[in-house]
Every structure is written in structure tokens, then in C-alpha cells.
């Protein structure tokens, strides 16, 4: 007992500040891509050629569209682009309620912020999640699991993982939906009482991600289930998942567009001074 108390003193109170304070993402973190099509060279397709996931499309007007639902956030395109059309910000909030909102053509942030009213009414203060891995590499699961740890402690924000789909409000799917998981995913969804929601967590369930095109996968879950929330990322950072879940529950109000990036950076600098490194990184 004494040892436990001693240990508790040493370990300290380590809960993260999210969502009260914006998370500080690592220096080299690749978040929301910002596209400046005005700089795009017409005859250049360096980004297209280098993208391993085929997320970039050249549009007829000369600009490009980056599909976050396909992007695996490797950053190769930003390095390949000599004219600086593509930049990856350190912004973590990537989730969207509609698939088409993931197509990025500019630097604005125009995601819908409010979920369907029923979700907020029902799950605003109690969201029970059943997670299903449908193929994939297991990294999304790991980073989702992180939300259970001290630093994130999603239980304090009314989110919990439950054992049975019968207990769940929401199905969180990761992975590109391997053919072998098709039936299991359907059965899990069918086992949930109404109303049942679906979250596609990670690039894989949205489009198949890096595995798109393989014979053994279905290229995302859309052909089986219509997700109520799309969260790109490979894997999404815990902060992204957390933000997405909160937004899904209708509990996270975004600061309006425009000043977001600046604000985040300012906060960064302000925090760096007074915080220990481990604290700033954890959040």
C-alpha cells in the first residue's frame, strides 16, 4: 500500500490538458494538408508520381486535389513539389462528416462542425464504442487504445469502449476491410441496437489506404456501411481521434477558420517556455 502511494507520488498527476488546451503536435508532425493551387505548375506532376496512395489528382483547371481520404500522410508530395503547392500543417483535426469534405483544394478549413442532432442528443454525454479491426496494420488500434491511458483518459470525456456491440452506440472501424472480415463487420453492425453509428478511423477504412487495389481487401468500408464520421490519418494521431470523437458527440466547438493555424502556433510558443518537454508532447 505504501509502495503504491510512493509510486503514485513519483508518477504524479499526468492527465493531458486536451481538450481545454489545443494539443501541441510534434515538430515534424504532418497534419492537415494545405493546398495553394495558385502556385501549381500546369505541366508538373511530381506530386502525382511520388504519391504512394494515389491521393492526388490533377484537375482540368490545372490545380490539384488532394484526397485526405486516400492520403497516408507520408509527406513525399510536399517534398517533391518544388513550387510549394502542398504543405502539411501541424493541424490535428482532420475528421469530417461527409466523404467529399475530405477532398482538399485550398488552405481553408470548411468542415462541418455539428453532428446530426440525434447523435448529440443521445450520445453527447455517453458514447460507447465497439471497435472492429477490419484488416489493417494494427496501428490505428494502438493509437485508439492510447486514449484509455492517463494522458488522454477518454472516460473523463464520456467515451468508453465496451465489450459487446449490443452495448455500443458506435462502431469504430479501422483497416481497409479485408475480405475475410467482411462478414464479421456486417454481423457486428447488425448486433448493435438502434440507432447505431459508424466511424471510419484511419485512411484505410475510408478508401483502403495503402492497401487499396489488393485482391484481398475491399478498399474501405463504404460499400458495406456508410460511416457517420470520416477520420483520415495513417494512423491518426490520438489527438485527432480524440478531437474527432468529441466532434462526433457534438462536444467540441472549433475556433473559426482563418486564425486557427496562427493561434495554434502562438499557443505552441507560449507553452514551450513553461512546460516540461514530456508534458508538451503528450498533449
Amino acid at each position, binding site marked *: 500500500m505504501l509502495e503504491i502511494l510512493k509510486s503514485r507520488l513519483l508518477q504524479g498527476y499526468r492527465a493531458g490538458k486536451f481538450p481545454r488546451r489545443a494539443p501541441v503536435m510534434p515538430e515534424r508532425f504532418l497534419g492537415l494538408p494545405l493546398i495553394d493551387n495558385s502556385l501549381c505548375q500546369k505541366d508538373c506532376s511530381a506530386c502525382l508520381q511520388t504519391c504512394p496512395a494515389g491521393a492526388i489528382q490533377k484537375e482540368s483547371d490545372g490545380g490539384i486535389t488532394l484526397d485526405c481520404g486516400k492520403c497516408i500522410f507520408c509527406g513525399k508530395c510536399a517534398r517533391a513539389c518544388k513550387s510549394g503547392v502542398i504543405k502539411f500543417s501541424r493541424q490535428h483535426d482532420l475528421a469530417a462528416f461527409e466523404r467529399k469534405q475530405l477532398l482538399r483544394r485550398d488552405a481553408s478549413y470548411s468542415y462541418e462542425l455539428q453532428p446530426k442532432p440525434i447523435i448529440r442528443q443521445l450520445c453527447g454525454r455517453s458514447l460507447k464504442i465497439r471497435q*472492429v479491426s477490419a484488416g489493417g496494420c494494427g496501428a490505428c488500434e494502438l493509437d485508439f487504445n492510447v486514449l484509455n491511458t492517463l494522458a488522454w483518459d477518454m472516460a473523463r470525456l464520456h467515451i468508453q469502449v465496451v465489450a*459487446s*456491440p*449490443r452495448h455500443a452506440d458506435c462502431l469504430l472501424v479501422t483497416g481497409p476491410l479485408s475480405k475475410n472480415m467482411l*462478414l*464479421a*463487420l456486417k*454481423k*457486428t453492425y*447488425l*448486433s448493435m*441496437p*438502434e440507432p447505431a453509428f459508424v466511424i471510419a478511423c484511419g485512411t484505410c477504412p475510408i478508401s483502403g489506404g495503402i492497401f487499396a487495389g489488393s485482391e484481398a481487401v475491399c478498399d474501405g468500408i463504404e460499400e458495406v456501411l456508410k460511416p457517420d464520421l470520416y477520420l483520415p490519418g495513417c494512423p491518426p494521431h490520438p489527438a485527432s481521434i480524440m478531437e474527432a470523437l468529441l466532434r462526433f458527440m457534438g462536444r467540441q466547438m472549433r475556433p473559426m477558420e482563418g486564425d486557427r493555424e496562427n493561434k495554434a502556433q502562438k499557443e505552441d510558443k507560449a507553452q514551450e517556455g513553461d512546460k516540461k518537454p514530456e508534458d508538451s508532447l503528450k498533449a
Partner: protein
Amino acid sequence: MSPLIFAILLIIFAALLCLLLSFNERSAGLVVADFSSGQLHLPALIALAGTILGLLAIVPSCAIALFRDTLPGCGEFMRAWFLLPIICVGILSALHSIAYLDKSFSPLRRGVYWFFFNMTVAMMLLVTQAEHPVIFLLAWEGMGLFSFALIMFDYKQKENMHAAWIYFLACQAGGALLMLMFFAGAFPLFVFICGMLGFGLKAGAPILHIWLPGSYQAAPAPASVLLSAGMINLGFLGILRWLVLPDPALAPLLGYSLLICGMPGALLGIFFAMPQKNLKRLLAYSSVENMGLIACGLGFGFLSIHWQRADIALLSFAAAGLHLLGHSLLKGNLFLLTDHVYRASGELNLDKLGGMQKILPGTGYAYTLSAMAISGLPPGNIFMAEILLYVAAARGIASDKLSVVAPSLALFLTLAFCGVLAMTVFSKASAAIFLGEPRSKAARRNLAVPPLMKRCGIAFMVLLLIFLCGSPFLAPRLMHAFVGQYESLYSADLGAELYASALDARRLLGLVLSCVLLVGMLFILLWRVRRKYLPYSTAVPPRRFTWDCGFAQPTARMQYTGTAFVQPLVELFAPLLRPVKKILLPRGLFPKKASYELSCHDGSEQIFWRPLVNFTVRLAIFSHRLQSGHLHLYVLMLISALLALFIWGFAM
């Protein structure tokens, strides 16, 4: 002629007529009524009519005895109390028998069955009636013999014959002991021991219950009902009528011995019921438990008289009486319901059944309710008895004297532990039979169950309900009866005590019933709220599949079997139960086969009877050696015997 004698004669007459007609081919094959499953033949009709008319004839006198307001004639009340289950169970099992004896039985066999059935009933009635030892002994012996014939009705199966022979031996031993009891009046202790053993044999006392599980399992279902719900009680009647009544001085001794037999009996019974796979065997062991508890109640009552605590005594007697009736009806019902299951599936092995609720919904409700009731859950007839005994024991615990506290405490804990183990046993049984998915082809077979059988089940449930609601009124009357019977035992004036206890019991049972009613009302209220006001529950919830982790092909093998359900408890009590496991473990990295089989042989057989038999056999072999046939050896024996006598003579 009293109605009882008339009934006995009528039943015997019907039996003889039935037997006579059965041997005549023409009349034996004469069909009187046609049911979906079989026909009712003339002899059977006669026997059936005899039984039912006879038993119905007793009802009025029985009712008068039970509800007469004045105290005298308590002997009559007791007799009526023991007659009550025989009447109920007799009529219903007779009706069930019609459906039981379907086309597969030849008319002759039916005739024989009915003969023995009627004779058994008649002898049981005679046993309750007999006032003279010789008649009693004759009736007792007849009851044993005729029921022996019923048990060996299905004589083609070897194990049935084995069970029947053990039963026969037990009956003969019991009869012999009782004979000794009646004709050795000079030695009270000897009389007592003989009587206890003799009647204990019939009442399924621990160790002496050896015949019980096998014969219940072997007998045809209606006969099992007769045995378990009617005959087994008569052991207690014997003890009350022939042991205590003639010699009230035996009461304290009887109290101790009943309590000392009853508690381990109850525990052993329920322990051995736990791992049983055969449904009827499980019920048989549960009978041993219930008999143990009844013995506890009676024993505690007699002890309390000895302690001069009339209030405790009265409560205990009322508890024992209610328990006896409740057990008879519930056990009868459960045996009959088990027969429904057997009819529909041809299977009595718990581990192979499952999902029968969908095939036999009515049976499922009735079984589950009866199972909950027999494990002592409220609102059940057994609970009504047990709560009285609990209160009695608690009053004993609150006493100042250690000699009172210790037995009360032991009884209190025995009751609690038996109760919770019985809940385990019966939730295992009803879950394994009725709930989940069928575990074998048999459970999926869905053969027709004759409607008559089902109606018998309904009748049982109605009777149970009537007696449940009547229990607040019956309990005080039981107290009266016992006071009247054993008035000589009480030293003080009983009037006030009796009045208070009767009031206590009536109030307690009434309150329990109203609590149950309250729960029912609360439930209905909650149910309506749930249905009406919760947004999504107004719609009919979709029926999908049990959550199977998303696996493609879940099978019925993926549910707990009855044995698996109790496995942890059986392992925990393995030193007591000594389960015999035949396990072939999977060997090596890629095993070819593995298997598991568990059986629990009767504890008394292992610990007591087998060593006893072995010892006897060894003794016999040894004495056989002395009989070698050599003359000189006999001479030597003669001389040594003479020598021994000489020495003894000198020593004196």
C-alpha cells in the same frame, strides 16, 4: 364403511378386474377411446376409473379433516395431510399414465401396469390407514412389492433390473427391520433403532437412500411420481405414527437423530444432485435433499419440545408439514414435465438437451417455475415452509443456551447452503433443458407430446398455486395437528403459545405472499413504463443472433453444457463428491483425439455399501474355508469350542 376403506377396496377391485380382463384377448384389445398417441383399452379404463373414483371418494373426508375447526381428531388431520399428496399425485399420475402407455405397449403389458399401479396406490392408502401393526406391515410389504414390479416394468434394460433388485432388497430389509421393531417392544432403544432404519430406508435417509436414485430413474415416469411424491413421505408418517406416538419419551432422541440425519442428508442429496446428467436421477437426489430438510424440520420440532420452546416447535412442525406437501406436488410435477421432455426428444441426458423452450413452451414455463420453487425461491411452496423453519432456527440462535444455539445455528446454515446449491442445481437443469440451442439431434426431434400430459402439468400448477395461497391458513392448522397429536409431550399449557405461533406463522406467510404480490405489481408497472414510454422500445425489437464475436458459423457446441455449468463447484467439492473423470488428454503437438467424461457415483455406495458388501463377501469366503468337509477339522473345532467353554466356566 369409511370412505378410505371403500376407496381401497374399489381400487383393488379395479386392479384385479383389469388384470383379469387383460388376459382375455378380446376384452384386452377393446378400444374405448382413441387419443392422438394411443388408445385407451377397456381394462385400463376400468383401472383408471377405479383409481380416480377411489381417490376422489376420499377427498371430502380429507377436506373435513383438514378444515374441521375443533382440535380433536388430530390423528385424522395428520392422516389427511399425508393422504393429500397421494390423492393429488395419484389422480394426475394415473391420467398421465394413459398418455404414457401409448401404442408401443401391448394390451397385456398395459393391463399388468395398471394392476401394479392400482395396487401400489391402494397399499399406500392402506399404509396411512392401518392401525394394527400386522395390517400395517402387510400393507407396507405390499406397497414395496407392487412398486418393485412397477420399477421393473421396463425390464429389458439391464440397469433397470439392477436398480429394481436393489430396491427389492431395500424393501425387504426395511420390512424385516419394522417387523423387529414391532415385536421387540421390550427394548426401547432397539425398537427405536429398528424403526429409524426401517422408516429411514423408505424416506431416503442418507446412506440408506442407496436404492432411491436408481429406482426413480428406472421406473416409468408416472410410477416415479408415485414413488417420489407419495411413497417417500410415508417413511415420515411411519416415524410419527409408530415411533413417537406409542412412546413419547423417545421424542428428544428422535429429535436429535432426525436432525443429525437430516442435515447431512439434505447436503449430500443436493451435492450429489449437482453433477447428475440424467434428469430423473437429478430429481431423485433432490428428493433426498428435501427429505433431509423435512427431517430437519421434524427433528428440530421434537428438540424444541425437549427445550420447552413450544413456539419454535410449532413453527418447525408447520414448516415440515408444508415442506412435505410442497415437495410432493413440485416433485410430482417435475417428474411429469421431465416426461414431456423425454417424449419430445427421447433423451434424458441434460448435456444433450437444450432449446426445448421453443418446442415445449408450456412445459418450459412450468418446469422453470417449479424448479425455482423447489430450490426454495419465493414465491414457491418450499419457500413458504423454509421461511418458517428459518424463523424457528433464528429464534433458537437468539436463545441463551449453547445447547440450543448450536443445533439452531447448524440448521440455519444447512438451510442456507442447501437453498443456494439447489438454486444452482435447478438453474442448471432448467437452463440446460429449455434454454439456448439444442445440443443434439434428439433435442431437435420435436416429437408430439400428448395433450393429456400437458393438461396434467397445468393441473399440477393450479394445485400448487392453490396450496401456495392456502399456506397461511394451513400452517396454523398443522400446528394444531401436532399439538393434538403429541399433547402429552408438552409440560406447560399450550394454549397461549399455540395462539401466538399460529398468528405469527399466518402473518408471516401472508406478508410473504403480499411481498410477492408487490413484486408482481412492481414488475407489471415497470413493464408498462418500459413498453410505453421508452422511445425505441415501443417498436418490436429486431430478432437477430446471439453475439458470437462475428464468427461465421457458430454452433450449438459453443454453449455451456449442464456439466460445464457446475464444473467449478464440482471441482471445489471433489473431495466429497469423488467424481470419476475419464479424460483422454490431447497428447503431443498434433493430437489425434481427446475425450472427457465425468460421472459421479453415489457417495454412500462408494463409502459405505461397497466396502460393506466386500467385507461380507470376504467373511463369507473365509467361513466357507472352514467348511472344508474334513471330519478331523470338525472334531478339532468341536474340541477347541469345548476347551473355550471350559476356560470361560473356570474364569467365571
